[in-house]
C-alpha cells in the first residue's frame, strides 16, 4: 500500500483547505446524500413501472457499492469476492421462504449466515495483502458459486431457485426497502468517518504497520469491517431474491457484480461518503438506458468504461470536483486561473503514469 500513499499525497494534501473548514465536510456530505436519496424516493410517485424497476436495481447497486466501501474504501483491502455475501443472502432467504418462514426472518437469517461466513473467511484471508487478498476473495466467490451449482442448493437443477411471487403491490415495497438500506449504509459511512472504529480503518489503509505500532488491533478491525460490509450486501441479496423470484448461481454469484461494486466505488470516490452513491447512480443509470435500448455491446461498453475510469479517474468523480472547486491562491489573474485549472486536471489524470 505504500505506493498508494506515495502516489496520492502530493496531489491531494499539499493545498487542502485549512482544518476547521474541512471538519464540516461530513455534514455537507450527509446533507447532499440525504437530498439525493430524498429525490430518488419520489420515483414511485412520478415514475411508471419500468422506472420503478430500473431504480430498484440502481438502489441495489448503491447499497452494494456503499457496503463494499466499508472494507475496500476505508481499509483499502480490495475484496473482489463480496458477491459471495450477496449470493449467500439470496440463497439463505430463498431457502427460508421455501420453508414457509416469514420474509423478514429469511432476511435476518441471510445476514446472519453471511456475517458468520465473513468472520470465518476473514480470519485467514485478511492476513493476506494486495493481489493475494483480492484473488483469494475472488476465488472464494467462484468456488462458492460452483459448490451451489454442483450440490444443486436451489433444487431446480444446476442450483436454480424459484420462489413464490411477492404480489404486484410489493414492488414499491422492495424499492423502499432498498432505499432504507442505502440510507442505513449512508449513516454507517458517516459514522465511520467520525468514529474511533472508522479512524482505525483509515489508519490501516494509510499504513498498517504504523497503526499496529500505535496499538490498533488491526486484524480484528479488518475482520470487523469485513463483517460490516457483508451484512448489507446479504440483506440486498435477500431482497433481490424475493424481488427477482427466480435466480441461479451464475446470476447471484457473478464475479461481475463484485467488480461492479469496486468500479462504482472507485468511479465515485473510494473511502468517501458520497462516492459510492454518485458512482452507482451515474453508472447504473447509464447502463440501464443502454440495455433497454436493445444495445448488444453492453460488455464492450462496460469494459471500456472500466478502462477509462481507471486510467483517467483513479481517484473518482468526487476528488475531481474537489480539485475544481478548490480556491486558487489569492490574487491570481483570470488567465492564470485557467492555466492553473488545466494544470490541475493534467496532474490529476497523469498522476500514476510511467
Amino acid at each position, binding site marked *: 500500500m505504500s505506493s498508494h500513499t506515495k502516489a496520492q499525497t502530493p496531489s491531494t494534501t499539499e493545498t487542502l483547505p485549512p482544518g476547521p473548514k474541512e471538519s464540516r465536510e461530513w455534514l455537507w456530505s450527509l446533507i447532499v446524500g440525504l437530498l439525493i436519496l430524498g429525490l430518488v424516493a419520489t420515483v414511485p410517485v412520478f415514475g411508471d413501472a419500468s422506472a420503478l424497476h430500473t431504480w430498484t436495481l440502481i438502489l441495489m447497486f448503491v447499497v452494494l457499492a456503499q457496503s463494499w466501501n466499508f472494507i475496500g474504501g476505508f481499509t483499502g483491502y480490495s475484496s473482489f469476492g463480496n458477491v459471495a455475501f450477496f449470493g449467500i443472502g439470496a440463497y439463505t432467504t430463498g431457502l427460508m421462504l421455501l420453508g414457509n418462514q416469514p420474509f423478514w426472518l429469511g432476511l435476518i437469517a441471510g445476514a446472519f449466515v453471511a456475517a458468520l461466513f465473513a468472520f470465518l473467511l476473514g480470519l*485467514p484471508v485478511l492476513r493476506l495483502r494486495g*493481489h493475494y487478498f483480492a484473488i*483469494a476473495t475472488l476465488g472464494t466467490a467462484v468456488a462458492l458459486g460452483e459448490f451451489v451449482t454442483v450440490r444443486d442448493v436451489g433444487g431446480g437443477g444446476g442450483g436454480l431457485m424459484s420462489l413464490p411471487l411477492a404480489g404486484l403491490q410489493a414492488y414499491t415495497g422492495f424499492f423502499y426497502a432498498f432505499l432504507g438500506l442505502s440510507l442505513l449504509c449512508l449513516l454507517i459511512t458517516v459514522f465511520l468517518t467520525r468514529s474511533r472504529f472508522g479512524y482505525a480503518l483509515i489508519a490501516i489503509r494509510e499504513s498498517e504497520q504504523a497503526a499496529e505500532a500505535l496499538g490498533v488491533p488491526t486484524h480484528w478491525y479488518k475482520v470487523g469491517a469485513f463483517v460490516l460490509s457483508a451484512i448489507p450486501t446479504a440483506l440486498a441479496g435477500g431482497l433481490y431474491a424475493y424481488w427477482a423470484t427466480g435466480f441461479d448461481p451464475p446470476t447471484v454469484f457473478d464475479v*461481475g457484480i463484485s*467488480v461492479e461494486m469496486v468500479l462504482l466505488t472507485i468511479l465515485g470516490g473510494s473511502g468517501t461518503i458520497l462516492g459510492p452513491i454518485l458512482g452507482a447512480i451515474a453508472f447504473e443509470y447509464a447502463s440501464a438506458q443502454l440495455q433497454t435500448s436493445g444495445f448488444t455491446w453492453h460488455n464492450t461498453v462496460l*469494459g471500456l468504461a472500466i*478502462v477509462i475510469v481507471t486510467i483517467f479517474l483513479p481517484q473518482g468523480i468526487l476528488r475531481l470536483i474537489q480539485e475544481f472547486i478548490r480556491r486558487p491562491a489569492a490574487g491570481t489573474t483570470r488567465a492564470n486561473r485557467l492555466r492553473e485549472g488545466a494544470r490541475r486536471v493534467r496532474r490529476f489524470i497523469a498522476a*500514476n503514469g*510511467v
Partner: protein
Amino acid sequence: MALGQVFINWLLLGSLYAAVALGFSLVWGIMNIVNLAHGAFIIVGAYTAFWLYSQLHIDPYLGIPLTMAALFVLGWIVQYIAINRVIRAPLLVTFLLTFGLDLLITDLVQQFFSSDLRSINTAYAGNGLDIGSTHIAFDRIFAAGIAVLLTAALNYFLTRTRTGNAILATGMDRDAARLMGISIRNTYALTFAIGAALAGAAGAMLSELYPFNPSSGDAFTLRAFVIVVLGGLGTPWGAVAGGLVFGLAETVVPLIPGVGPGYDNAIAFAVLVIVLIFRPSGLLGKPYYS
C-alpha cells in the same frame, strides 16, 4: 485407469499449464501487475489459430509464430496506451483496469466470432504412441515440448541477452534502471508484449486440444494465478513447477472417492489457499526475478 496413464496425463497437462502461466508470471514478476486479461489473451490466441486454420489452412502448431506475433503487437499496444498510464497507481487500479480489458477483449471476440463452441480438428488429432496400455497423444507431446521450449527460451532471453537483462533490471528497481538509461515505457511495453505472445502460444495449443468459446478465458486466468503462486515468482521454471503441481492436483483430486468431477475451480482455489498459508513465496520463488 492405469497408473502409467495417470502419470503421463499428469506430465503432459502440467507442461501445458506451464505454458498457460508463463506470460502471466513474467508480467507479474516484472511489473507487479496481476493481468486479469491474461485469459482473454489466451482466447485471442486460440481464435487467431482458429482463423489461421479455417481461412488459410495453417496448422495451429506451425502457426504459433504467427499467433505469437499478433499477440505481441496487441500486448504492446495495450501496455503502451493503457497500463503504462496507471503503473504507479494502487494495486486495485491495475487490477480493475486489466479486468476491464478482459471484459472488453472477450466481448469483442464474441461479437466477431459469436459465442459458439469452436474446435480445430487436425488430421493427427487422436493419433499417438501406444506403449502397452498407455496412450500418448502426439498433439499432447507437441504441446508439452513447445511449453518447455518456450520456458527455456524465455529463461535464456532474460538471463543472457542485453534486452532481457534490461527487463530484469527494471523489475528489480525501476528508478535505478531509468538512471542506467533504460526506457521504462518501452521495457514495460516489451515485457507485456512478450507476456501476451506467450499467452497466444498457449491459446494456439489449447485451441487444438480442447473446444473453446470466448468465455473460456476466465478459467485460465484463475489457473495461471494459482500456478504462479504455487511455483513462485522469480524464474520461468517456477511456472513449470507450479504447472506440474497444479496438474497433479487436478488429475488426482477428482479420482478421490466422494469428490467427483465438477469442482475444477474449487480445487484450484483450495490449492491456492493452502499454498498461501504454508509457503507464501511458492516452490521456486525469488523476489523480482533476481
